[in-house]
Each structure stands twice: as structure tokens, then as C-alpha cells.
């Protein structure tokens, strides 16, 4: 359909620039430091409690790989099973098509309730519905905070993680909810009161899905607050938008993910509520169930043998919480609904346009420290995918000052004698030294010396010493 993929926000600057702004936001820095520090420790405890954590991770990885390798078969199975149980399956090639389908299914409804879902954020569903006069009410507390604050999400699990309690109270006040204090319990109460009537009266609900079982057609949503249960059971019609890759082969496979996901995301043994439904159950829950299967760049991602592992992601957000870059820049710097390490590898692949400068900057938003890989419950080797995508970005960019410098360096390193000449030439940097330090370098060196002294090149490289003493 040729329209841009709304997975990135129009007009977002490239990562380094966006990060510069975020790094100067002192409140943001403090909020993120507090939140990520808390959750890291709790995740470590929750995971440490299971002696078979590594086995579970390996099983999770293998199940997801099997899914990806036979995705066509599992999707067909899923469609058949859902249909057999009274559900209707729809296929959407991209965001625009998915939005159209959902809008059509909303029928006459002017207001719909929504459970937090990354897929619907990715396709910009709320905006598309609003344009057609349908108001989508976010019912997850953090989503509600973002929606009421006319803000953007900054985390895949806790979209308002960049806000602290007093900021949230202000947002609620401005929106006419009136929390008596900034106690989290009181703020949660205010959200409860605000949404109660909508739950009881809405005719249509929209959700995402954490998993869908190909063999049985069962769809699974994990949540905490009960807003999910409200949306999944009370309205007459339920529309679920799900990325293609969320399918798992069998009911038994969930025994792995129902252990991996809660401990990795909210660091609990189990999240408060998990709902499982299969098609339509007469007398219990919605009378109509629609499942929208979303591609929107996923098949393009699947086509990359290295990059496809990003589709194993179960959106737990553990990689965000441990990421030293994310902790400092926050999620909005990534310019996408998928921030952090997973965003850095997933967003550019979903965008699938190597000339999109903002998306191409994301794989560089990492020091490659590997903390993300260490915690990922489905063992996505994020650092390897990052370097892989960097190679693609380099190829797409063609000749640049950097590529010339890199080629020159490679040429120097290709011969020991050229390398030794360069060492001698490089020792000219000694000219910049004052009192045994170099605090300023010209050109590209300036990015280094803006905050760090540079080492003064030695009078004698090691190899000279070796020649004299051991050669």
C-alpha cells in the first residue's frame, strides 16, 4: 500500500539527537533510574528462584524458532481452529489495512474500550479510529496516563514509566479525575472510578494477544489490573489484533511462556490475571470474536536469517530494564513504540527502509554490552542482530567520510609495515599533549575529547620494545 509504517513517529530525530535532549531532562533521568533499578533487582530474584531458568529459556527459544520456521502452517492451523470455534479471522498486510478492518468491525460504536496492546500501538490504531470519529479508551493504567497526558509511550510494558507519581497526579487532575493524593493506590482508585462506567456500557472491545495456540485456537492475554478481563468478557464484540509471530504450536507450549513472561516482565511468579479464550463461548463473554492477523513488516523481518530472531520476542521488556542506554535516554528517544534493545533491532526491520535515517540510527544506539541478551527469556542475541543491522546500514549508505576512514584503516591494518608507519604518524598526536594529557583533538577526535582526555601516544610502541629486547 506504499504508506509509511507508523511503527516510528513521524518527524522523530535520529537517536543521537533525540538522546541529547532526553539526557538533559533531569526529572526523566531520575524517574528512569529509580524504576529500572527497582525492577532489575526484582527480576533477578524472580528468575533466581527457578533452578531450571536456563532450560526454560532454551525451550522458549526453540519453540519460537519452530514457529517462525513453519509460520505458514501454524497460521493456517490457527485460522482453522479459531473459525471452528465461532471466531472470524482477518488478515492485514500492513497498518492501514489492519486499521480499516478494525474500523469496519467497530460498526456504529462511537466509543470502544481497549486493553494495552503493542500491535495496535504499532499501527496507530487509536489515531486512525479517532479520524473516523471513534474514540478508543485506553484502560490500562499506564496507557491511560499516556492518553490523558497527550503523551507518547516510553516502555513496552509500562508506557508511562517516564512519569513519577506526582506528575501522574497532575495529568489526572488536568483531565478532570481528582485523585486525593499522589499515592499509587489512590491514583489507581481514580482510574478505577473513571473507567468503571465505560466497562459496563461499551459494546466493543479491542485487545492484543500475548499468545495464540495454533492447535486449539486459544488466545491468551496476560495482565495485572483486571481491565483486560473487563474488555475480554463484558462487551458484546471483541476484536483482537495480533502480530503473526505470536502464534505457538500447542497448548503445552504455554507451560514454558507462562513461566518466562511474568518473571521477566513484572518480576512476579505469575501476573495477577491471565485470560484464555477460544472462539466464542455461548453464555460467557462476547458473542462475536474477530482475530486480526497483522503482518506490517513481519514477513520482511522473517526473510532475514539473522534478523528474524527478533520475532521470537514476547515483549517482556526485560531488555529495556537492564539496558544502560535505555536507562539514561528513556524510550521516546527511539522514536518508536518499540524502544530499548528490542526496538533497536525490531523497529528498523519493520520499517524495512534502509534509507530511513532515523530507523537506521537505532542499531547504533547500543554499546553492545550484552546485558539484553543475558536476560532475554527467548535468548534473542540482540548484540549480534545489532551488528548485523549496522552492516546493512553501512551498505545502504554507500560512500561516506566514515566508510573512507574505515577503508583506510583496514588498508593500514592489512600490512604490518603500513601499520608501523601509521603508528609513527599517530604519535604526532603527542603534539596535542599538555601536562601528560590530551584534552583537545581536532576533527572526529573532538567527539572523544568533549568529555574525556585522550591517551598520549607512547614514545615507543610495544613492538619497538619487543624488537630491541626479545627480537
Amino acid at each position, binding site marked *: 500500500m506504499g504508506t509509511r509504517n507508523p511503527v516510528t513517529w513521524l518527524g522523530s530525530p535520529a537517536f543521537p539527537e533525540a538522546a541529547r535532549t532526553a539526557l538533559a531532562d533531569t526529572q526523566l533521568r531520575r524517574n528512569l533510574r529509580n524504576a529500572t533499578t*527497582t525492577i532489575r533487582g526484582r527480576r533477578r530474584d524472580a528468575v533466581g528462584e527457578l533452578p531450571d531458568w536456563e532450560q526454560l529459556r532454551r*525451550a522458549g527459544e526453540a519453540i519460537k524458532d519452530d514457529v517462525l520456521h513453519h509460520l505458514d502452517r501454524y497460521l493456517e492451523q490457527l485460522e482453522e481452529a479459531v473459525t471452528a470455534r465461532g471466531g472470524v479471522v482477518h488478515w492485514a498486510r500492513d497498518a492501514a489495512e489492519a486499521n480499516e478492518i478494525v474500523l469496519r468491525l467497530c460498526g456504529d460504536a462511537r466509543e470502544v474500550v481497549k486493553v494495552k496492546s503493542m500491535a495496535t500501538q504499532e499501527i496507530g490504531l487509536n489515531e486512525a479510529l479517532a479520524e473516523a470519529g471513534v474514540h478508543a479508551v485506553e484502560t490500562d493504567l*499506564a496507557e491511560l496516563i499516556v492518553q490523558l497526558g497527550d503523551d507518547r509511550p516510553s516502555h513496552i510494558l509500562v508506557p508511562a514509566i517516564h512519569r513519577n507519581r506526582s506528575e501522574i497526579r497532575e495529568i489526572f487532575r488536568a483531565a478532570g479525575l481528582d485523585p486525593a493524593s499522589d499515592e499509587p493506590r489512590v491514583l489507581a482508585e481514580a482510574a478505577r472510578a473513571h473507567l468503571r462506567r465505560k466497562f459496563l456500557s461499551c459494546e466493543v472491545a479491542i485487545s492484543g494477544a500475548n499468545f495464540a495456540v495454533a492447535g486449539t485456537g486459544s488466545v491468551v492475554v496476560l495482565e495485572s489490573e483486571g481491565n483486560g478481563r473487563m474488555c475480554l468478557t463484558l462487551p458484546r464484540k471483541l476484536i483482537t489484533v495480533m502480530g503473526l509471530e505470536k502464534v505457538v504450536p500447542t497448548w503445552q507450549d504455554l507451560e514454558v511462556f507462562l513461566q518466562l513472561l511474568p518473571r521477566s516482565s513484572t518480576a512476579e511468579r*505469575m501476573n495477577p490475571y491471565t485470560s*484464555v479464550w477460544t472462539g466464542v463461548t455461548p453464555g460467557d463473554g462476547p458473542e462475536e470474536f474477530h482475530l486480526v492477523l497483522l503482518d506490517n513488516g513481519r514477513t520482511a523481518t522473517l526473510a532475514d536469517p539473522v534478523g528474524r530472531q527478533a520475532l521470537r520476542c514476547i515483549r517482556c521488556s526485560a531488555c529495556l530494564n537492564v539496558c544502560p542506554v535505555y536507562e539514561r535516554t528513556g524510550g521516546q528517544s527511539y522514536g518508536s513504540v518499540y524502544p530499548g534493545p528490542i526496538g533497536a533491532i525490531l523497529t528498523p526491520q519493520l520499517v524495512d527502509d534502509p534509507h530511513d535515517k532515523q530507523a537506521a540510527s537505532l542499531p547504533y544506539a547500543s554499546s553492545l554490552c550484552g546485558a539484553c541478551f543475558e536476560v532475554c527469556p527467548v535468548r534473542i542475541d540482540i548484540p549480534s542482530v545489532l551488528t548485523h543491522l549496522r552492516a546493512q546500514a553501512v551498505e545502504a549508505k554507500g560512500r561516506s567520510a566514515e566508510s573512507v576512514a574505515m577503508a583506510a584503516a583496514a588498508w593500514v591494518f592489512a600490512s604490518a609495515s603500513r601499520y608501523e608507519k601509521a603508528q609513527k604518524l599517530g604519535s604526532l598526536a603527542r603534539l596535542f599533549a599538555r601536562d601528560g594529557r590530551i584534552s583537545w583533538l581536532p576533527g572526529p577526535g573532538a567527539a572523544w575529547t568533549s568529555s574525556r582526555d585522550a591517551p598520549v601516544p607512547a614514545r615507543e610502541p610495544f613492538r619497538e620494545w619487543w624488537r630491541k629486547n626479545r627480537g
Partner: protein
Amino acid sequence: MASARAEILGRVRDALRDKPTAPPVPRDYVRSGEASVELLAERVAHYRATVHVVAEPDVVPLLGELLAGKRIVVPDGLAWDVPGMTALRDPLTVAELDAADGALTGCAVAIAQTGTIVLDGGPGQGRRALTLLPDHHVCVVRADQIAGTVPEALERLDPLRPLTFVSGPSATSDIELDRVEGVHGPRRLEVLIIR
């Protein structure tokens, strides 16, 4: 519509032209675990739910104590007849459910390791809304319903039924990633485990 389906499946097959293979799924993780009343009680209490461990003959008297004088939603097929409370039975509107003081149910399975109870809409549990709208959920678990681990629990469950896994009262971690209880679902969860 058919064309989107065909096109997506075609793209998937194209994307997999390299015929990737993966080793079989290793299932060497722990399958079974302690299925004790004590462990379940400890783990449920950890979520700040109220837990009572009782002997069979004490169930009805205790329920009577807890629910006396209250308007309690009761699903069909509940094994306990509790004196002193007003039992509300389907058909009930959402407004009636919302106005009830609580709901009393059994469960299908409980998971000791994670402190979870699972409802499957069977006898004594009812449709999902019954345990959702009332602000207080009292759930009775029999010892033989306790599974040790998540894998053991899933084995006992039928995915074709509507399932709700409940681990503690409704909660949120959305404010500063700190868990607080009580949002949309029942704010009080009370679990009676029969020894």
C-alpha cells in the same frame, strides 16, 4: 480479504526459502513440584490475598462468618450452601453484579509454585463476569485440585474452556514499577484451602 491472506502466506513462504531448521524443543525443564497446601497458602498470601487453611467440616461455618449479611454472587453447582448470606444467582445484569458485595466460587486447578488459582467456568465457578465485577472474590480450593507447577496445571486444564488464571487481587505496577493492589478486578481476594 482472501487476497491479503494469500499474499501474507506467500510472503511467509518466500521469507523461508532458506529452509531454516532448528533442533527439537528441549523439554528438560522441571515438570513437577511440591503440590502442598502449605506452599499454595504461602504463595497466595505473598500477593497479599487473604488465605485460610481449613478442615472440610469448617468450610461452611467459616464462609458463613465471612459472608454473613452480604449479597454474594453464587454460580450454579457450588458445593457449599452457606447460611446467613443473600445468594445472588444468574441471570444477573452487569449492574447487579457490580452492586454485589462479593462472589463465592470453587476453582478448577490451583498452582502451588506460583500461588495461582484457575477458573474454567465449570460447576461452582460460573461465567467469567461473575468473579470479575464484585469487589470481593472468595474462592475455595480442595487439596486435590492443587498442582505443583505450571506444566502440571496446564495438563489438567482444557484450553477450549474460557480460563482465568488469578494470582492475587487485581494489581498494577504502572506507577514507578511498584506493585499496588486494587484496580479494576476484585480488590480483595480471599482463598480458602481445604486441608
